[in-house]
Each structure stands twice: as C-alpha cells, then as structure tokens.
C-alpha cells in the first residue's frame, strides 16, 4: 500500500484520517502545519499528500505551489472545511479538492484515483 502525508492543524482530523487510512492498509505520516513540510517530503517520500488549506500560520494553497514547484508529480489532495477556496486559481495545481466531511468516502475515492494515476515516463 501507499504512504500518505496528512497536513492539518486539527488534531481530530489527523487522528480520524490516520485511523481510517491505516485500516485500508496505508502508512500514515502527519504534520500539524506547513512547518518543515519540504524536509518531511524529502525524508518520508510520501505517495500522496492530503493538505488542509486554512491553517493558523500557513496557507495550504501557498504550500501547494511550493510542493508543485519541487515535486512536479507528487499527488496533492486539497482538503478543506470550506468550498469557497475552489474559486482560487491556485487550486488548479492540486490533483483534487475535497470538502471535509465525517464521511470519508469521497476523500478515499479521490485518494484512490491519485494513487492509481499513471503517465508513462
């Protein structure tokens, strides 16, 4: 299975997603915000990032641009309680945008698509 990096400032979300994704056989790494994100990606080499947008000191949309610049093909799923960020063109650089919900069906489906995606080298 795959290694998923969850970046979210809500501890409850990190715990819930960790449990659910581990149950599906994934390895999960978590970060409480964007601090040290690039170093963690370098060390952990995740297969996909689930990235919150509105964090106390970090903006997930700005973090997304940094990730995309350095790791062009690393899947990133934006995950926010707000759908209003969809109007921001920065979201175009994300693989998917999923609005937070207690039902993780959509998030898991988008994670599956992101992990299955393949383009020949």
């Amino acid at each position, binding site marked *: 299975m795959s290694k998923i990096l969850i970046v979210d400032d809500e501890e409850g979300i990190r715990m819930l997603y960790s449990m659910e994704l581990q149950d599906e056989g994934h390895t999960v790494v978590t970060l409480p915000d964007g601090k040290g994100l690039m170093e963690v990606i370098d060390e952990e080499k995740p297969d996909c990032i689930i990235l919150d947008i509105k964090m106390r000191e970090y903006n997930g949309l700005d973090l997304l641009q940094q990730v995309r610049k350095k790791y062009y093909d690393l899947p990133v799923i934006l995950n926010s309680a707000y759908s209003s960020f969809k109007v921001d*063109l920065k979201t*175009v650089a994300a693989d998917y945008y999923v609005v937070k919900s207690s039902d993780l069906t959509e998030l898991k489906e988008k994670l599956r698509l992101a992990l299955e995606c*393949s383009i*020949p080298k």
Partner: protein
Amino acid sequence: MKYVEENPDGVSKADIVVGIPSLNEAPSISFPTEQADKGLIKYYRNHSVVIINCDNDSTDGTREAFLGVKTQTPKIYISTEPGVSGKGNNLRNLFLKAVELEAKAIIVADADLRSMTPLWIRNLCEPIFDNYDFVAPLYIRHKYDVTVTNNIAYPLTRSLYGRRVRQPIGGDVGFSGNLAKQFLESEFWSDKVGAFGIDVWMTTIALRSRSSVIQSFMGKPKIHKVRDLDSHLEMMFEDVISTVFDLMIQYESFWREVKWSRPTAVFGFGLGDVEMPPPVEMDTHGLWEKFISGMRSDWNLYSSVISNENLNKLEEVLDLPVGGFEFPAGLWAKIIYDFAISYRNRSMDRHELVRAMIPLHYGKTLSFVTETHAMNNQQVEEFIEDQCVQFEKAKSYLVEKWFA
C-alpha cells in the same frame, strides 16, 4: 518549408522571440505588437529580444502595418510563400527562425487579440526561464465561449495524455528553444496541423515528450476580433479534431498506458481584480435545429460508426424535448471514442467522418447550455471537471475497442 524574410534591424540572435501569426490582420496587428513591445521593455530590458510577424503573405497590408508600428524592440517580418496559408504553417516558420536565432524562450500571441496586456509577455515567458518547457494560457472565459475546448479538446487531451491543460487550443503560449527544436523534429505534420490544428499539436507534443508543462494565468479574458462563428467553428473543428485523431494514431502506445490525470503547476497570481469576459449569447433553438437536421441527414453514417449500445442511447437523447435536453457526458465520451476508432480504421472518408461530428457537437453544446444555464463560472468549471472524469472513466472502453 521556405519563407520570405525582411529583417530591417539585422537581428541575428535573440533570447526571447515574440511571434505573431497572421493572415490579413492589417487593422488588428498593431495592438498585440505594441503590447509585446511594452512587455519586453518592462520585464526583459536586459535580454536580447525580437518581435516576429509570421504571416501568410497577406494582401491587405499586414506587413506594412506591422513594420510601421513604432517599437523599441527590433522586428522581423517573415511570410510563407504565396499560396501557402494556415496558422500552423506560420508557426512552423517561427520555429525555424527562433531556432536559427538561438532563442531561449518563444511566445506566441494571436494577431487579432484585443485584450492582451504587457503582463501576458511576462506570464508566458517567465516560467521558461524557470526551466519549464511549455506554458499554456489560463484565461477566464465565458461559459459559452470555446465550446470545442470545453466539450472535446480539453477532456479528450486530458484523458489521452493524462495532464490537465485547460486550454489545449488556447493559441497564446510560451515554449522553450529546446521544445521548438522538438516541434521541428516531430514525425507528424499534416495540412490540418498547418492550419488550426497547430495549437493542439503543440500541446500534445509537449505532453507526449514529457516536457515540463505549466499553465499561466493571464488575468484578462481573451477577447479577439469578431468572427463568423458558424463558418469559423466548422473550419476549426475539422482541423482540431482531425489533428487530435491523427496524433492518437501516432501516439497510441503512449496514451494506452495513461490512467486518470494529473494537474500542472500554475503561474501568475496576485493580479488583483480579475476582469470578467463579455457575455456570449447562444441560440438554443438554432443549436437544436442543427443537431436534429444533422441526425436526419447523417443517421446512416452514425449507424456505421457508433456502436449499437451508444446508438440506442443516442436515440433516447433524440426523444428529449429542447427545454429538458441533455446529452449525457459518458455517452458523449464514448461516441467521440467511436469516431476516433472509425477514423483510425479509415472506415470512410475522414473528411466526411469529422464533418459528421459537427451536428453531434451542436447537440452536446445545447446540452451544456441547458445544464449550465443557472451556474456561475466556478460551478461551470466543476461541471466541466465532472465531464472530464467521464472521459477518463470511458477510456477503458476506448482502449478495449482500439486495441481489440
């Protein structure tokens, strides 16, 4: 291909080339030329630069109009030989000239643009100096503008080559000198590429060659000269769709392996207020009539191209009233794939085959207008994304039938 050249400033080398393709654009060409000049002066003062009008031997004084624009940037005029027309042929000359000038970055801006700003130069050029090879434009466009892009070119390019380039036939692009060389070395060229097929050809070659692709936000909507929409659409439709299908044949081993799709990086934020595009009126009754008329005249052709299952569903669609008309995206995708397979198989004249898709396109456009009538731009974008996912899901149908 040979071209005629006029190089009054004797330019022999340039880091940045701005190319403006044209055919009889004397009244329009001064505006993009001035904007390009302003952009190059403002953002690239320390680079060697040139503006090139790559023309189709216009007879309306385009050459004089272009060379007559007062610019600080040197200019070159090149033209196809008399009798050779087409945007693609103009751009092929541009590739040749840009490679000869050892250009690092090449920007293309249409000659009839009315909304271009100097910032477009920076936004199409800057990513090239940041090691990207191909810069596609991201414009805010009215939901009923560019129906071929929304309903076919974008979802098809995305499902085939796995990269989400929202405007694969946008026209205004940037690319590296290296990619210009790859364009010239490409094994595939046709009359359609030499015409309006060039934009999707460039995008596809960039994606197929795994060049680093980025989309750049242009800030202003794309506004160009008013055209006769019906005749322009039909001409452009055939060039674009034939080129997409020809490239499918060329690159079948590549797209067979592509599953789902990935985004690109994006450039060009912080532009302040975004200008909204002017409204585009759609004649739903006219679309309906052209759809129904095509169904009647081309039904025998459809029966031999479209699979029985999809044909039965198309009959259901035909029974729907114009007010509640809907052409399901999954069915639309499979019908497009049926046509691609028939094109590959040469089961009939290819010109006739692609022409027969136009009434279906009108039907799909009518459905798009009906379904998105009350939606804002963002909701329409999500609608188009869902449509693209239908193309991606139907890809297994294409692969199974294409490689049977």
